[in-house]
């Protein structure tokens, strides 16, 4: 089979991901997986795959890809600005969250995500990817995943499983939640912080810093005062935990977080608001709202209703 996408430009941070690699955190291997689960799953639904099929995740600027070989049914999900450049040079703007057919010689130029960070590129039948421990997710830091655990590289070839030129295309309407309130539950060491800081955490806005990636999101705002200890005995980490190191500025641990950590955690982002959080761009503001477990579990039901 000689059908592939040639990578003419890899983009800033393009990696293959799925829903994650589980059951290995006790050996130091974090689950990884797509950052925005809803957008990821929608990319697969658009092309008729099972939602867990591996897809290409990109951040900010995506790749420029040229199809070599037979036609393919593909989709780009998220808030994404991209062009489809046909073999004869005609350029037209693409529509995200709608599948389309590309043919030999066509190029897909994923210019940027729009007021968001992550987008997904999926193909009917899936990409040809090597599973590592049951997953095609990429953890660049430990070089685990397909593509030898690397980000997409220029000139590489992305092979795929199925040629498709006749299947009907599909469109899914998504209401992206642009609200800046992120719901959290109290963290294990919430009581480490002064009364004032416990209040500040929910009253003040936090600015998302440029030091944000798949591992964590650093925030800037009112300094949080720790009254007990700035270090704890290292303990296992959960995605969405908000830890506060000695400088008093919170860091939200994201999908590629370290497996164990020694900073106190003031709060944890609820599952229903995680996708919304990771799509916030550096420079934008967020505000935390305290909820309890029952509210979080109900919010999850509403969240999965969108899948």
């Amino acid at each position: 089979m000689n059908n592939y996408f040639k990578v003419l430009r890899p983009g800033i941070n393009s990696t293959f991901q799925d829903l994650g690699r589980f059951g290995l955190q006790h050996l130091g291997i974090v689950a990884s997986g797509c950052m925005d689960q809803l957008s990821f799953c929608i990319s697969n639904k658009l092309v008729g795959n099972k939602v867990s099929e591996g897809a290409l995740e990109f951040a900010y600027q995506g790749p420029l890809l040229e199809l070599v070989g037979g036609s393919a049914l593909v989709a780009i999900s998220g808030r994404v600005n991209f062009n489809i450049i046909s073999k004869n040079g005609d350029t037209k703007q693409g529509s995200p969250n709608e599948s389309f057919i590309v043919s030999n010689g066509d190029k897909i130029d994923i210019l940027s995500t729009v007021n968001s960070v992550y987008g997904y590129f999926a193909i009917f039948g899936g990409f040809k990817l090597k599973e590592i421990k049951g997953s095609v997710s990429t953890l660049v830091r430990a070089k685990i995943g397909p593509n030898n655990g690397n980000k997409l590289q220029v000139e590489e070839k992305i092979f795929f499983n199925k040629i498709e030129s006749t299947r009907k295309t599909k469109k899914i309407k998504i209401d992206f939640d642009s609200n800046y309130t992120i719901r959290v539950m109290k963290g294990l060491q919430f009581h480490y912080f002064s009364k004032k800081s416990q209040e500040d955490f929910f009253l003040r806005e936090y600015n998302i810093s440029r030091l944000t990636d798949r591992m964590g999101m650093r925030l800037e705002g009112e300094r949080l005062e720790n009254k007990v200890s700035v270090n704890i005995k290292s303990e296992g980490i959960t995605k969405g935990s908000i830890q506060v190191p000695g400088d008093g500025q919170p860091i939200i641990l994201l999908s590629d977080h370290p497996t164990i950590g020694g900073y106190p955690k003031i709060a944890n982002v609820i599952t229903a608001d995680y996708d919304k959080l990771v799509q916030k761009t550096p420079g934008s503001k967020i505000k935390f709202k305290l909820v309890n477990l029952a509210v979080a579990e109900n919010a999850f039901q509403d969240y999965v209703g969108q899948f």
Partner: protein
Amino acid sequence: MLKKISNIGDCGITCDFGDEVNKKTNKEVIKLFNFIRDSVNNKKIKGILNYTPSYNKLIINFELGQTKSKEIIEFIKSNDYSKMTLSEKSKVVEVPVCYDEEFALDIKRLEDKTKLNFQEIVNEHLNTDFFVYMIGFVPGQPFLGDLNSNLYHDRLDTPRIKINKGSVGVVEKFCTIYTFESPGGWNIIGKTPFDLFNINKINTSVLSPGDTVKFKSISKKDLLSFKNE
């Protein structure tokens, strides 16, 4: 003893075994870890994604669409895992180390602090049966204890930007083995050629929490000619 179970957000719980960092507490953590791992493998409980032991806690992550914290807490409380023995799940692993001065970067620092000479420090290290408290930070990196108290020393004031893979380091009562090249602040006393972690092998990590490590001294020649299977 399991002291308390708390929620970590809506898709995690922590099982807290108290504030002590010692083998006795950690063995209780590992017992529950073994029980949860077996229960997941034998499909006695569904929806669990990860289970991560540390010195005094076990953190369990689950898929909210499959289960809820209430179900997992009830499952733990309704089972008596305390009588499980660790030995049937654990193994002793011999790890070769070359203590050649080329690799023992911080031996002078340790000699100054401990008032022991090089050979005495190495002998202490070789004579210790190290318990694997936990594995993490980076894939496969073990946290081993306990060193004899006469070897205790703090972290380096300024962590090294690069520590080579295989470096063996000590801090306070703990010993670690760097499984990847990474920054770090441990006192480096030797190097192992033994690959403890390889994602492409069926047995990804040689060590598992609860195992025991015994170090064995090897020459630089043995280090250079060592073949990983």
